[in-house]
C-alpha cells in the first residue's frame, strides 16, 4: 500500500494515497472541482484550465530544512502567486487547497465565458443537452451574461461524420482532447487527432474507413459537450425523458454491464422502446466502457420480424395457434418421445431458462445438448478464475496467455482489459497463427501453423527454442490467466486446447487461485451458464438430432448453421423450436414457441469470467411471447414436473438449491453493490462522463470447482481431433470470428453498423490465391464436406500465413471447424 498523505481542502482534512491528484482527492472528499479535459481514467493534460485552484504548501526554512511555524505553532502556508491546475498536481503532505475563494471562482467564470465565446448554444436541439457538462458547469460557475459579440461567433461545420457511427459538431467542440486521448491512451488506436492550430484547430480522423475503432461510442460518453454524438441516438430523445434500466450486454461472454435507456414513443406505435445502450460502471468487468457492437447491436430485440404467437404445422404450413393448442401438442409428443427427447440449447439463453429446460429434459430422461463451436467448458468450470478475480488488478509480475484468439474481434472489452494489463506491466504472451491487434502489447509472440495449437502450447510449456524466455516468464509469474479462443478451431480442437491449457494452469499450482485461471472466449454470452446447468456439446450433433424422437431446440439455429444439421433435423421424430425469430430451423419445425427478448424479462447470465450477473426488464413484452424459463415450466407442468415459471428470482432459488456452484446465490446477493472508484454517473457528469453508475449489482463470481472439490477430475467423452489431411487441389479452411458478423443478433442493426459488417468473403495469402488460380476480388464457390457456399469473394492479405483460407463465421459459410475445401470459379446458378 502506498504511503498516505494528509492535506487540507477547503478546511476539510483529507487523507489519500501518495500520488493521488488534487482533483481526485477532492472528489473522494466530496468537494467539487469542475473539469473538462481531465478524466479519471486518463492521464491529465491540464488543457482546459477549468480546475484552477489556490495551492498552498508548508513554508520550509532553506537554511534548516525545517517547516516555518507561525505564532500559533502551526506550519506557515505559502500560497503560490497564481492559480494552479488541480488535475496535474499530485498531493503533498500539509498541502492546503482552496477551491472557492473569489479568485478561483473568478477564474472558473472567465474560463466558462471564454469557452462560450464560440459555442453555438444550440442546446435546445443538442443530443447532449440535459446531460452536458458544459451546460451544468455554466449554470454552476458561469457568468450568465457574455461580454462578447454574438456576431463574432465562429461558424463551423455542424454535422461532420467521423465514420458512419459518430458525428462531430465542430462548433460545439471545446478542444479538450478527451476523445483523442481515449483513442491514444486507452485503446491505442490513434485515429483521431487535432488538425491546424489556434482558432482553426479542429478534430479530424485519419483512418480509412474513418474513425476505425470498435470503441468509438465511448468517446461520445466522455465528450464534455455535444460535439461527438452517435448516429443511432441522433434526435432520438432528450436525456431527461429516458428511463434507465440495468441490463447485461448479450453480444459476447464479457458480460458488460449496460443501462438501457427507454422511452414510449409514437413512432413505435406507442410502445416502450430502447433508445440507446449506455455503459454501467462495473470496475470488475467493463469499467466504464462498452464496445460498439454492444452499443449499437441491440436493435434485434425490437425487430419487426419477431415471432409473436405460437405456431403449429398443419396442412397449409405453420399456422398461428393459441398457447394451449401448441403446448397440448408438445405435451403429447414429448410423452411419446420420452427418453428419446433431445434438448438443444444455445448459449444466448439465461441461466433460469437453461435450468428449467434441463429439469424437464432430465425428467423425461432425454439428452441435454449445447449448441456451440467452442468446447472445454468443463475445464473452465474447474480451472476458471478464482473467486474475487479482477483483470483490472493484473499488472507487473503477472502473466496473461492468449492462445488461438483474435481477442479484439471475439471479445473487444477483454482485449481492452488485457491490453491495459500489459500496459501496467503484465507479461502478455500471444500464441496465434496470424498477427492480431493484440501483438503490439505482447512481450512474447509466437505464430504457429494453423492446426498446431497444441504443439505450440506444448513448446511453451516445455520452454523450447524461442519460447524459453516466455516459459520462464510463465513459470515465475505470480498470477496466470489463460484465454483460449476459436481462431481456426472447431468444437473438438477447442476442447483439446482447453484441456492442455488447464493442464498448464494446474501443473503450475495455480488452479483456483485468485486472479489466475482459464477463460474460454465463447461465441455466445452464456455458454458457460449452459455448461453449469448441465448442457454439453456433442461431437456428432447431426447423429444425435436425426436419431431423436423429439428435438427441442431453444435459441439455436442448427439448420441455418450447417446443411448436415438441417438434414438431420428432417429425420428427427418431431421438432419443437423456441426462439425470437423464424429462423431456418423454426421454419422446419412442427411447433414454434415464441420467446421474449432479454429486454423484456429478467434473468441472469454467467460471464466468461464466471460472474453471475443480473439483467432487468426494460420494456413491456409484446403480447404472445413468453420468457424461455416460463415456456419450459409450462411444458414441464404438462409432462409431470413442477417448476417455477412465474418469476426468474424463484428459479434462481431452485438453481441455488440444486447446482452446487450456485449454492447460496439469490437475486439480492447478485444485486449487491459496493463503492467503486472513479465515481461515475452521479450529478457530476463532467468528471467521468455520461455512463451510469451501478445501483443494480456487480454480480457474484463463482468459485471454481478446483477449490470446492480439489479431488475431482474432468472427464469428457470427446475424441481428440484427428490431424486434418488436405488432399491435392484443396486448401485448409480456418474459420475465424469477426466482431460485426451477420448473425441473428446483429443483422437487425444492419442500418447502423452495416458498412462494417463482415461480408461473404474469404481471406488468403496472395501467393496461395495465385497458386489456386484466383486473383483478389474474384468470386468463387467453396465446396466443403457436405456443403457448398457460392458467391464468396476472394480477398488477399500479405500478412496471412500461406496455404490457408480464412473464412469468417456467421456470413453463410457453414464450416464449423478446420476443413479441407475446394474452390471453384463461380458458376451462375441459383444458390442451394
Amino acid at each position, binding site marked *: 500500500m502506498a504511503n498516505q498523505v494528509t492535506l487540507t481542502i477547503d478546511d476539510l482534512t483529507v487523507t489519500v494515497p501518495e500520488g493521488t491528484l488534487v482533483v481526485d482527492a477532492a472528489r473522494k472528499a466530496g468537494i467539487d472541482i469542475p473539469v473538462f479535459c481531465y478524466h479519471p481514467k486518463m492521464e491529465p493534460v491540464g488543457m482546459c484550465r477549468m480546475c484552477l485552484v489556490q495551492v498552498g504548501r508548508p513554508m520550509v526554512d532553506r537554511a534548516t530544512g525545517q517547516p516555518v511555524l507561525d505564532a500559533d505553532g502551526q506550519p506557515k502556508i505559502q500560497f503560490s502567486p497564481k492559480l494552479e491546475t488541480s488535475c496535474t498536481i499530485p498531493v503533498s503532505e500539509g498541502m492546503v487547497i482552496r477551491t472557492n475563494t473569489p479568485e478561483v471562482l473568478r477564474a472558473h467564470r472567465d474560463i466558462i465565458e471564454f469557452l462560450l465565446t464560440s459555442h*453555438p448554444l*444550440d442546446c*435546445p*436541439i*443538442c443530443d447532449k*443537452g440535459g446531460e452536458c457538462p458544459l451546460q451544468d458547469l455554466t449554470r454552476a460557475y458561469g457568468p450568465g451574461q457574455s461580454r462578447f459579440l454574438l456576431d463574432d461567433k465562429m461558424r463551423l461545420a*455542424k*454535422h461532420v461524420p467521423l465514420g458512419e457511427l459518430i458525428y462531430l*459538431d465542430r*462548433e460545439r467542440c471545446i478542444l479538450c482532447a478527451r476523445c483523442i486521448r481515449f483513442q491514444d491512451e486507452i485503446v491505442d488506436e490513434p485515429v483521431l487527432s487535432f488538425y491546424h492550430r489556434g482558432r482553426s484547430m479542429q478534430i479530424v480522423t485519419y483512418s480509412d474507413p474513418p474513425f476505425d475503432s470498435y470503441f468509438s461510442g465511448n468517446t461520445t460518453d466522455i465528450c464534455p459537450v455535444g460535439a461527438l454524438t452517435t448516429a443511432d441516438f*441522433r*434526435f432520438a430523445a*432528450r436525456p*431527461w*425523458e429516458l428511463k434507465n434500466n440495468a441490463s447485461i450486454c448479450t453480444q459476447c461472454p464479457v458480460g458488460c454491464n449496460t443501462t438501457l435507456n427507454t422511452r414510449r*414513443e*409514437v*413512432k413505435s406505435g406507442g410502445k416502450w422502446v430502447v433508445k440507446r445502450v449506455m455503459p454501467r460502471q462495473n470496475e470488475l468487468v467493463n469499467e466504464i466502457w462498452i464496445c460498439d457492437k454492444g452499443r449499437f447491436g441491440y436493435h434485434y430485440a425490437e425487430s419487426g420480424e419477431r415471432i409473436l404467437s405460437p405456431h403449429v404445422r398443419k396442412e397449409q404450413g405453420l399456422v398461428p395457434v393459441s398457447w394451449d393448442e401448441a403446448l397440448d401438442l408438445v405435451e403429447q409428443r414429448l410423452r411419446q418421445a420420452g427418453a428419446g427427447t433431445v434438448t438443444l440449447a444455445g448459449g444466448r439463453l439465461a441461466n433460469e431458462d437453461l435450468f428449467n429446460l434441463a429439469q424437464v429434459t432430465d425428467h423425461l430422461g432425454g439428452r441435454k445438448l449445447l449448441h456451440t463451436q467452442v468446447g472445454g467448458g468443463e475445464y473452465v468450470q474447474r480451472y476458471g478464475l478464482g473467486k474475487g478475480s479482477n483483470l483490472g488488478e493484473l499488472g507487473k509480475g503477472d502473466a496473461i496467455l492468449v492462445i488461438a484468439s483474435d481477442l479484439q474481434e471475439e471479445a473487444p472489452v477483454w482485449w481492452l482489459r488485457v491490453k491495459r494489463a500489459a500496459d501496467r506491466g503484465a507479461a502478455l504472451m500471444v500464441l496465434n497463427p496470424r498477427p492480431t491487434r493484440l501483438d503490439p502489447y505482447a512481450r512474447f509472440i509466437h505464430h504457429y501453423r494453423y492446426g498446431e495449437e497444441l504443439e505450440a502450447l506444448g513448446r511453451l510449456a516445455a520452454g523450447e527454442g524461442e519460447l524459453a524466455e516466455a516459459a520462464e516468464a510463465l513459470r515465475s509469474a505470480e498470477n496466470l490467466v489463460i484465454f483460449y479462443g476459436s481462431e481456426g478451431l472447431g468444437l473438438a480442437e477447442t476442447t483439446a486446447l482447453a484441456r492442455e491449457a488447464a493442464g498448464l494452469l494446474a501443473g503450475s499450482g495455480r488452479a483456483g487461485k485468485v486472479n489466475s485461471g482459464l477463460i474460454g472466449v465463447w461465441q455466445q454470452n452464456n455458454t458457460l451458464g449452459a455448461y453449469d446447468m448441465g448442457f454439453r456439446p456433442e461431437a456428432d450433433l447431426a447423429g444425435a438430432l436425426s436419431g431423436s424422437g423429439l428435438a427441442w431446440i431453444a435459441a439455436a439455429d442448427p439448420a441455418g448453421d450447417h446443411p448436415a444439421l438441417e438434414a438431420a433435423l428432417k429425420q428427427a421424430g418431431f421438432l419443437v423450436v423456441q426462439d425470437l425469430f423464424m429462423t431456418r430451423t423454426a421454419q422446419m419445425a412442427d411447433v414454434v414457441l415464441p420467446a421474449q427478448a432479454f429486454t423484456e424479462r429478467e434473468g441472469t447470465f454467467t460471464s466468461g469470467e464466471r460472474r453471475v450477473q443480473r439483467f432487468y426488464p426494460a420494456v413491456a413484452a409484446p403480447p404472445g411471447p413468453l420468457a424461455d424459463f416460463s415456456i419450459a415450466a409450462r411444458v414441464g407442468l404438462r409432462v409431470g414436473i413442477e417448476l417455477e415459471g412465474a418469476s426468474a428470482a424463484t428459479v434462481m432459488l431452485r438453481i441455488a438449491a440444486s447446482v452446487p456452484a450456485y449454492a447460496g446465490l439469490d437475486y439480492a446477493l447478485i444485486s449487491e453493490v459496493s463503492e467503486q472508484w472513479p465515481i461515475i454517473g452521479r450529478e457530476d457528469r463532467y468528471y467521468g462522463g455520461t455512463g451510469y453508475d451501478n445501483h443494480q449489482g456487480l454480480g457474484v463470481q463463482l468459485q471454481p470447482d478446483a477449490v470446492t472439490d480439489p479431488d475431482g477430475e474432468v472427464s469428457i467423452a470427446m475424441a481428440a481431433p484427428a490431424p486434418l489431411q488436405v488432399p491435392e487441389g484443396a486448401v485448409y479452411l480456418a474459420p475465424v470470428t469477426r466482431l460485426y458478423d451477420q448473425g441473428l443478433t446483429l443483422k437487425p442493426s444492419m442500418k447502423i453498423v452495416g458498412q462494417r459488417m463482415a461480408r461473404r468473403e474469404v481471406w488468403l495469402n496472395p501467393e496461395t490465391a495465385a497458386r489456386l488460380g484466383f486473383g483478389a476480388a474474384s468470386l468463387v464457390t467453396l465446396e466443403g464436406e457436405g456443403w457448398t457456399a457460392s458467391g464468396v469473394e476472394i480477398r488477399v492479405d500479405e500478412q496471412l500465413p500461406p496455404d490457408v483460407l480464412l473464412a469468417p463465421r456467421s456470413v453463410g459459410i457453414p464450416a464449423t471447424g478446420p476443413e479441407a475445401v475446394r474452390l471453384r470459379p463461380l458458376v451462375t446458378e441459383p444458390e442451394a
Partner: protein
Amino acid sequence: MLVRGLLTTLKAFLTEKTVTVQYPEQKRMVRTRFRGRHVLRRYEDTGLERCIGCSLCEAACPADAIFVEASENSDEERYSPGERYASTYEINMLRCIFCGYCEDACPTEAIVLSDNYELSFHDRASAIYTKEMLLEPVPPGGKPTPQRTPPGVYTRAIPEMSDPTD
C-alpha cells in the same frame, strides 16, 4: 327592510350599465396577457414551423400535459429552419393548467397561449390536441410544410434566436 332592498335593486336596474353579454352570440374581448389554448406558430415569411422539437416545453410543464417527439429535417422535406422539428406534438388540454411555462421555456417563441378559451369536449381522447390542430394556418406569402428547400440555405442547427420583443 324588504322595501329598502328592492329599492337598491331597482336603482341599479335603472342607473347601472349591463355587465353580462349574450354568450355565445356575443363575445367579450380578452386581456392582452390572457392565457388560452396554445398555438404553434410559423415564420411569417416562409411558412416554416417555428417549433424545433426541443421538448423544453414538455420539461417545463408542471402538469405533464405536453408530449413531443422530434425528427430530422432534410432539404427535401423541411418543416423548420433548423436541423430538427417536432414530428409529434400533443397537448392534453384536460391536464393543462394554462400556466404559460411552456411559452417561457420555448427558445423560438413557437408555442404561445392564444385568446381561445372555448375548450369543451365530449370525451377525454378529444381533449388531446395534435400538432395539426395546434399549428396556426399558413400565413399569406408562406408555403405549407413540409417544403422542398434549396441546399445550403438552412445550415444552422437552430434558427437565429433573439430575446423576445414583447
